[in-house]
């Protein structure tokens, strides 16, 4: 990435690092909201990949990568709303948002 390499590689590495940070957050934190934050970071890293490939791809004029990113943002917004609603309901029901203590599916 230093010294004449494609700028696309830099963006891909940034997206990979961001995905790994989000994955680490989702897998290691105890609070369910932090798990959702990690998932949002992973989705954003995927969007960065889509836009970078659109920008440096062979046919940017057909807008495929950009459309994919826009639809991905819309789906991620829906996911965030449903996920946070579920967290709020779980907190009301089980009095905790600690995923280590959510160990039964029975209500």
């Amino acid at each position, binding site marked *: *990435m*230093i010294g004449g*390499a*494609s*700028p*696309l*590689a*830099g963006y*891909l*590495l*940034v997206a*990979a*690092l*961001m*995905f*790994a*940070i*989000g*994955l*680490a*957050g989702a*897998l*290691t*934190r*105890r*609070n369910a*909201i*932090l798990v959702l*934050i990690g998932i*949002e*970071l992973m989705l*954003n890293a995927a*969007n*960065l990949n889509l*836009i*970078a490939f*659109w*920008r*440096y*791809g*062979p046919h940017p*004029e057909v*807008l495929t990568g*950009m*459309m994919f990113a*826009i*639809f991905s943002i*819309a*789906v991620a917004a*829906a996911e965030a*709303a*449903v996920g*946070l609603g*579920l*967290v*709020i*309901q779980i*907190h009301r029901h089980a009095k905790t*948002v600690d995923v*280590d203590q959510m160990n039964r599916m029975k209500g």
Partner: protein
Amino acid sequence: MSVVFFVLTAMTLAGALAAVLLKNLVHCALSLTVAFAGLALLFLELDAQFVAFVQILVYVGAVAILVVFAILLTRSAETPKAGGVFSRTWLAGLSVAAAVFAVLGWAVLESTPWLPQTTEAPAADVGQIGEALMSRYVLPLEIVALLLTAALIGAVIVAMHEKDGAQ
């Protein structure tokens, strides 16, 4: 690789790291906003102006506020008394994340010689995007509209207060 790219990258990754590592969840949400904004600036750097503004509107404007509301409603702002903020199995989670990053980074670095080099900015103004959304992508657009409606109604129903319950 410009200086702007490195500055924006540092800002985005610092925000993401802080969002995952900080103890206080309100601070996490604010760092998450910084990461989202840095990503929007990276989109601008990639000549995707429309996506950058969508990112600001949807993530900085809506999702971050939603996360703050959820934190305040579940009273997660105070740090837990015992056990710390990380799960018992944090070492396994961290190893999985490190392995995923190693594989992704290896794949990117191995494919560097074949990546395209073009640097002239593609033209994608809002008019073209609107035309594409209304012609070629009209069916996905309608499906996403339906999905958003269903998801938001579902979220409201799931999070709604039950009057006849124990609460």
